[in-house]
């Protein structure tokens, strides 16, 4: 007993936006079940909501998400792998009244470009670095990065990342939070609707922190079922239970205060319950 979903109803009001205003088209070649478009929606909808559209410039790194440079209705400069924060610095210094963001994956930002993002944060450049963290180099086939967690299976850690052989992951959000130059640091996730809603709020606070003159950072954990060798429907659970256990979701630094992982874990349990209740009641708005 199914309902016709091909035509919109007549006596109803629309909720939310089909495709973000700042995407020229919703079509893309990213894999089924990829979390990156969800993170991108959080960013683009927030730019629209804040009314900063006509003064936003993006700096995009190299990864699967690079494909969006042609569909983003945003003034964009393409940077090399790892190099977006320095390019963003140059853009912002020449155009200090613009909103400047970087869009980078974990291979890009935490492997190739670790130095760039740390120094950009330490200098307190008024830009917002957005990290799409799926714990693998997605575009080149799913190999280990600096954020891959112990036990996580990737193309070159098929038995799971081993501390003795492969070393330990870098928790980049936590590292940046401890730099005095970083004004707002948060880690979101897109493993379910509630997480997406929380992430969108983090992006908003990050852009507001930039407008107030500080460096802000939003890490978003995203699914990569292709890189993880899991069925698409299992991606969110795998994300939450592997990456999400180590790179803990939450606002890592707010108003100058670094928050502990324990504090975040407690908060996450409470927030998830609250969100489930609201969804059951009919919506997150």
């Amino acid at each position, binding site marked *: 007993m199914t309902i016709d979903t091909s035509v919109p109803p007549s006596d109803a009001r629309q909720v939310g936006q089909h495709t973000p*205003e*700042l995407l*020229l*088209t919703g079509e893309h070649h990213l894999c089924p079940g990829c979390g990156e478009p969800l993170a991108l929606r959080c960013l683009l909808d927030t*730019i*629209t909501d804040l009314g900063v*559209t*006509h*003064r*936003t*410039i993006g*700096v995009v790194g190299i990864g699967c998400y690079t494909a969006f*440079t*042609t*569909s*983003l*209705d*945003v*003034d*964009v*400069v*393409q*940077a*090399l792998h790892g*190099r977006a*924060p*320095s*390019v*963003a*610095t*140059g*853009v*912002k*210094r*020449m*155009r200090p009244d*613009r*909103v400047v963001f970087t869009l980078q994956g974990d291979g890009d930002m935490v492997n190739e470009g670790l*130095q*760039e993002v740390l*120094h950009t944060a330490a200098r307190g450049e008024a830009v917002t670095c957005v990290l799409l963290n799926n714990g693998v180099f997605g575009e080149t086939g799913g190999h280990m990065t600096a954020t891959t967690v112990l036990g996580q299976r990737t193309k070159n850690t098929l038995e799971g990342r081993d501390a003795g052989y492969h070393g330990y992951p870098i928790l980049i959000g936590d590292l940046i939070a401890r730099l005095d130059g970083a004004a707002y640091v948060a880690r979101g996730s897109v493993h379910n609707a509630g997480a997406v809603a929380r992430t969108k709020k983090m992006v908003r606070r990050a852009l507001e922190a930039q407008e107030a003159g500080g460096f802000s950072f939003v890490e978003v954990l995203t699914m990569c079922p292709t890189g993880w060798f899991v069925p698409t429907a299992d991606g969110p659970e795998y994300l939450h239970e592997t990456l999400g256990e180590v790179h803990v979701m939450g606002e890592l630094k707010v108003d100058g205060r670094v928050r502990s992982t324990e504090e975040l874990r407690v908060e996450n349990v409470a927030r998830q319950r609250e969100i489930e209740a609201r969804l059951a009641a009919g919506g997150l708005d």
Partner: protein
Amino acid sequence: MTSIAVQSADRRLMEGSEAIALAAIAAGCRFFAGYPMTPFTEVLEHFARYLPDVGGTCINAESELEAVGMAWGALATGARAATGSTGQGLSLMQESFAEITLAELPLVIFDLARGQGDYFQATRGGGHGDYRHLVLAPVDITETVELTQLAFHLADRWRNPVLVYGDYLTAHVEEAVAVTALDFGPVPDKDWALDGSATGTGASRLVSPLGLAKSGAEPVGIEAHLRAIDAKQRAITAAEPRAESGYLDDAETVVVAFGSPARFVRAVVRDLRAGGARVGYVRPITLWPFPADVVADAASGVRTVACFELCAGQMIDDVRLAVLGRAPVVGIGGISTDGSGFGVGRLLDMDTIRARILAVHEGGPDAELPPLPDNERTLW
């Protein structure tokens, strides 16, 4: 602080590093990023001192990789921007140099090299792919003031990076110069520059090396894009070679040299001419595009073409290609540096150079050259 206009309009003694910064600012450069490295460091210092006075920005980047990245971002907004280093630092920037060329951004690069062995890096491009940068090699500080400004003009005119090749002497020799703004004519509008205002209009812009276009527009594609860059660089090759030469009409020996050492060579050749020796010289001002026609003409009817360069021999390849067998080409320079390896060595000396030119002028292309002078000490 004295206004920069007063500082630069007065004719006064200044080192080349300072002249570079002031000339760049006169040309409208408002962004510089660099990382300290000898003998380039003072260029960074002078930009740091003067740029804020004109509302510009100078950043001490965390490494050369970030310095060129920051300049990339500044360029994308349509600003005149530069970076620089010595050859070792430019080595780190090569990937970005290649991609900035493909993104058709007008980067100006200052190479204060440790000698003349960065010629290949500058002219062949140390990065990947079929790209070239215009390379300008000033002979003295006065010409540095002119070529620095010309660099920004050519970079904008062609939407291609331009490298200014100097060395320890360029950086540290002081000459009396007045830095005044030079007008080289109009350059195209930067309608590709990003300022965020096109975001959300359906006509937003993309600055990219990849030949992509926003969805809805026809992408050029990477192959067509690379070919278009190649076509542009051929046009530059036809339009922009520059050289200075002298005493060529009846020369039996022609000496080719560039940059600071060419100043010595030119003075020696002038002396030799005064003494009746039929020696001439060609001084390439653009190392790329190399003034091949001038060198080829100079080599016609000549007994020996002698290349003087402070390195194992790099420009000599271009000289040989230009001469194409019209005359024998020999190298009369060599590796010569000071104890630190940053500066210039004992080869850069009028008497030493005169002896080497006379050896081939009197003995022909196969003449034995005097042994290279050595350093007396090392710093390390």
